[in-house]
């Protein structure tokens, strides 16, 4: 049994969370370069130029990339051979608190959804735990913007709706909400599981690298097809018209009940801030 001190987790999360607010992932920057080549609209090219410049300014470490520094979302995989000394959940939230308070990030979390008072430190985080083999703790951190989150949707399709139904739902969701979600987008799609599993799959997909395709060639192909279809919508950078609406469509799937075909679309914006921690 390996022992891990909860304080180490706090430190690692604090570091990653503050870093990501200022440094957009390299893969997204490469996505912008690609978008510069693929974008045909002049306004669209202007927007992408601004995003590149914005990334360069933010990377100096004084001003965050985007003012919505997001909800902290964490996928925490705890190896079953690790013993954590201290309170894991408190340690995670402490890491988030340190980053948001100490690194001049915006505190966007309300304690209660209806009574709406700010907690002042961007906690609590949204945390998804799983127990996995091994003696490591692996954490995927995401800072998820609220504007793009609001354009996300879930549907319980009928199995007879089939692949066409899935396609239509994904493309319609981007078509309706894409312009408001700061395109170029990263579209996370969950297919299968049940009601809650499907939403979690979509979130995982939205926080995945845009350069990583689904391991199953069937879904990898579907990702490419959805991407082309989304770009054909003409929404373009910032929704002002153009040929690059999405940087990627990422799909995650899970087995499901014979009467079910759940589909969730979690929209992420160009500020697709995420990072991985292994302890």
């Amino acid at each position, binding site marked *: 049994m390996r022992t891990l001190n909860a304080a180490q987790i706090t430190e690692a999360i604090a570091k990653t969370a503050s870093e990501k607010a200022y440094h957009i992932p390299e893969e997204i920057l490469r996505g912008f370069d690609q978008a510069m080549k693929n974008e045909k609209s002049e306004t669209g090219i202007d927007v992408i130029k601004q995003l590149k410049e914005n990334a360069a300014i933010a990377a100096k470490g004084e001003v965050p990339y985007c003012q919505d520094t997001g909800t902290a979302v964490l996928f925490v995989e705890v190896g079953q051979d690790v013993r954590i000394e201290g309170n894991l959940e408190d340690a995670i939230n402490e890491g988030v608190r340190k980053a948001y308070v100490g690194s001049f990030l915006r505190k966007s979390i309300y304690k209660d959804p209806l009574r709406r008072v700010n907690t002042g430190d961007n906690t609590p985080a949204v945390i998804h735990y799983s127990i996995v083999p091994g003696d490591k703790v692996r954490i995927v951190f995401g800072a998820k913007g609220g*504007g793009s989150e609001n354009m996300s949707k879930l549907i319980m399709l009928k199995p007879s709706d089939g692949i066409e139904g899935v396609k239509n739902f994904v493309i319609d969701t981007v078509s309706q909400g894409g312009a408001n979600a700061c395109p170029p987008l990263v579209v996370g799609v969950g297919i299968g599981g049940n009601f809650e599993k499907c939403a979690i799959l979509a979130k995982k997909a939205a926080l995945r690298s845009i350069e990583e395709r689904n391991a199953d060639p069937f879904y990898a192909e579907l990702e490419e097809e959805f991407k082309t279809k989304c770009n054909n919508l003409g929404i373009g950078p910032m929704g*002002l018209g153009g040929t690059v609406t999405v940087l990627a469509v990422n799909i995650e799937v899970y087995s499901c009940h014979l009467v079910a075909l759940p589909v969730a679309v979690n929209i992420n914006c160009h500020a697709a801030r995420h990072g991985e921690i292994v302890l």
Partner: protein
Amino acid sequence: MAEYRLTAPLKEEDAAKLRIGDKVLLSGVIYTARDAAHKRIVESLDKNEKPPMDLKGSVIYYVGPTPPREGKVIGAAGPTTAMRMDAYAPRLMQEGMKGMIAKGKRNDAVKKAMVDCKAVYFGATGGAGALINRCITKAEVIAYEDLGPEAIRKLEVVDFPLIVVGDCAGGDLYIEGRKKWEKK
């Protein structure tokens, strides 16, 4: 698609000449306000009280910035989604507001008010918080301090890069721009 350098507050003829797709570098004085501040402004207008800023020719920026570092005036300051302000914007246009800066689509009532009142809707690049920070040279809370990041700030801006996304001829770049590039 023309390019302009304009100064805020906006003159009637400046707002009226702009058309969707035009690029504007805006300098001068603008005000920040989000949902809660809008609600209060409209409430004070309803009570025949003076709003906290002169609305005539005013440009309002929908933004909730990150906190400034020491010695800085403001943090990252990109636009927020406009639709949450749709309920209040027509009233402010009737009172003389000439420009709105934000991101995302507007509803028909807002678009109609822009035509009736000869006002303009500018799109700023969503998420470009660090870039826009550089255009803001001064920031001062002038009302509703209790709202924190949502308090009304008076900003001085220099060459704030904007694109006209809604104009007083009823143009909407979210519709027209997309139409141009959509592949059926």
